[in-house]
């Protein structure tokens, strides 16, 4: 403990008229949300469909676009359409940056654009040029760890291969969210967070960046993306698919080397 910390804490103790400092675990230990986590793992398909509807309803008022698709190939169509129809904001070339995630690798985006001038990057680890690639991209594609229906929110935990900037710096953010990873409300989301060990940085995102600082006039795209899409995939994440995706993953990196 640094000396200034001792003095600082001592000042607080004096202010509170306290002699001793009880341990944090004695004051706030014990209570954990295990039950809540177990309950939310047992959601039926019907529950999940209902949550998707709630998510979509709440997304509307945030100008957050939602797309419900059955499987990854449906997601791929949506993404390809967005990339084809939109114009880059800060450059003349179409660059796209993707999180290193099996669900995104499974889209095999590089195949769709092999005849067009679209460059698809993936944020593999380690990559010293990840920042430049992100800055060059007008679309960022991420996979959400989970979603919250009540507030149309996606939650992203920072991990290897999944930078924070992918959902922040490009003009358009597309997030892929498996329906099975949708929880009802903030209570359930926090229960999941409490359960995860070694929480690094994480973020809740509810819609595109916005401001109303000039005469309370709502404008999207203050600093973050001006447009955001969430693609809700009904199909659950299946482990057997994993191997194919591993393969796809290695192909993706080759795809990038060629660019």
């Amino acid at each position, binding site marked *: 403990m640094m000396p200034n910390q001792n003095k600082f804490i001592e000042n607080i103790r004096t202010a509170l008229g306290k002699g001793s400092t009880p341990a944090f675990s004695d004051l*706030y230990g014990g209570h954990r949300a295990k039950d809540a986590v177990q309950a939310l793992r047992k959601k039926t398909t019907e529950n999940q469909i209902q949550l998707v509807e709630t998510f979509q309803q709440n997304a509307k008022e945030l100008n957050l676009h939602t797309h419900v698709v059955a499987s990854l190939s449906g997601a791929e169509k949506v993404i390809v359409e967005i990339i084809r129809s939109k114009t880059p904001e800060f450059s003349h070339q179409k660059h796209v940056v993707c999180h290193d995630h099996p669900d995104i690798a499974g889209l095999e985006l590089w195949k769709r654009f092999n005849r067009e001038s679209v460059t698809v990057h993936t944020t593999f680890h380690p990559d010293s040029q990840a920042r430049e690639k992100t800055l060059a991209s007008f679309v960022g594609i991420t996979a959400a760890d989970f979603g919250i229906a009540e507030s149309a929110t996606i939650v992203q935990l920072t991990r290897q291969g999944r930078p924070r*900037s992918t959902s922040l710096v490009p003009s358009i953010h597309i997030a892929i969210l498996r329906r099975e990873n949708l929880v009802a409300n903030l209570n359930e989301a926090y229960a999941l967070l409490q359960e995860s060990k070694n929480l690094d940085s994480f973020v809740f995102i509810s819609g595109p*960046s916005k401001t109303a600082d000039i005469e309370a006039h709502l404008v999207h795209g203050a600093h973050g993306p001006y447009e955001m899409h969430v693609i809700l995939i009904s199909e659950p994440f299946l482990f057997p698919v994993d191997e194919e995706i591993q393969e796809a993953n290695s192909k993706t990196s080759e795809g990038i080397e060629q660019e």
Partner: protein
Amino acid sequence: MSTNKHSSYREEAQKGIDSARLQSNLSNLQNRFGKGVMRYWEEMEDKGMRSRVKNARMRTFEHLDTILTELAKNVRARGGQVYFAETAQDAIDYTLSVARKQKVTKVVKGKSMTSMELDIDPALEKEGIEVVETDLGEYIVQLAGSTPSHIIAPCIHMDRKQIGELFADKLDIDYTDDPPTLTLAARKALREKLLSADMGITGCNLACAETGHVSLVSNEGNIRMATTMPKVHVALMGLERVVATLDEHREALQLLTRAAAMQKLSTYVSFSGGPSKKDDPDGPEEFHLVIIDNGRSKILADPEFREVLACIRCGACLNICPVYGKIGGHAYNYPYCGPIGAVLTPLLDGVNKHADLCKGETLCGACKDICPVNNDLPRMLSGLRQKLAYGSDRWNVKQHNLTEGYIYRLWRTITSNSFLYRTGVRLGRLIQRPFIGNNKLIEKMPSIGGAWTKDRDLPPIAPKTFAEIWRKKQRLKPTPAAPASREEK
């Protein structure tokens, strides 16, 4: 000093009242958010949430030594650095030392009231460091060389025309008063700053001790940018901006975003508490958390005012206060304005120095009704007035207005002696005559009374007292009928 501040409150308040632009912007804001939040409190299902959060906040203060130690421990465990700053100067010095060590040349700031309380910008600029506010409203205010006038709507005192002219001048674009075009111009200018800065300075909405995180809310994304892209992130937090557990965080966060802008959640809620790890793809190389006292432990020590530390800085009290709604934020002369500012500013920066603030409020109670954590601001405003009237050693308050004290003592003597009182009233009736205007009100009083009648008229002393009228009526009415028999008719 006190006279300076005195005139400044008056002058700034007058300016606010005279500005049609401010009046219309504030009235829109209050109609939408003040009323909207009150409606939400009435309709919300979980009505216990507000008092739960308040109780949790107060319990946190009881164990603040433990909780801040835990927070520091958990941030350090993640590789973050924690500095405890007793004074504003300590916090500035520490931040400067970090900036020097990292050879920082450009700082981007994400809306931090605390940084304004510290007044850190001039110190950074003196070192040759460029300081850029990145919240759109604060950027506009910074370009204009002005100060924010609302906690979450910093440029509420400006209109699109002014902003258009400002941008045409400073950003070298063609004049436009179209908000989307103006926002886009700022987006471009600020993106360049955000991506090239080497230090991000933010505040902290709520730190969570249990997990060792600082959480920040924003709609624009500037705070995420400022905490992700530069190589150093410095978070400045007042020692009270902490909750113990994630559970407590959840509820406090919901009240914050609801009360601030009627949102379920703000667009971004980001949690960070350390430098980026080895296999993290981005994020700052260094993370510094500066925990600041700067007068707060003194507030903590006083049971009369400890409650004010429970404030979660949502700004809701500004959106309902009839005084703030007329005079605007600049009159408060400090980063914290509105009812919360009227309590907090004197406690942090001197009760005598900011004597006008607590006296300017009306004690109508609206701020208490809207406060997400039920802070009894009117009670504390009265408490501050009491300190000013009688002086206080604890708060180092001198009796604010001795003349006022004498007048009240004289008044007490007169009113407690019936001969003196009656004579005084009769005398008053005579003296007031020349001052009664055409509207039958006293429009102008001489000497110190002049301040009273400057903005309002005073009803004159009536020709007869109530007792005199009553006695006369009794005399004219020889047989008063019993009320019961009258009703039976």
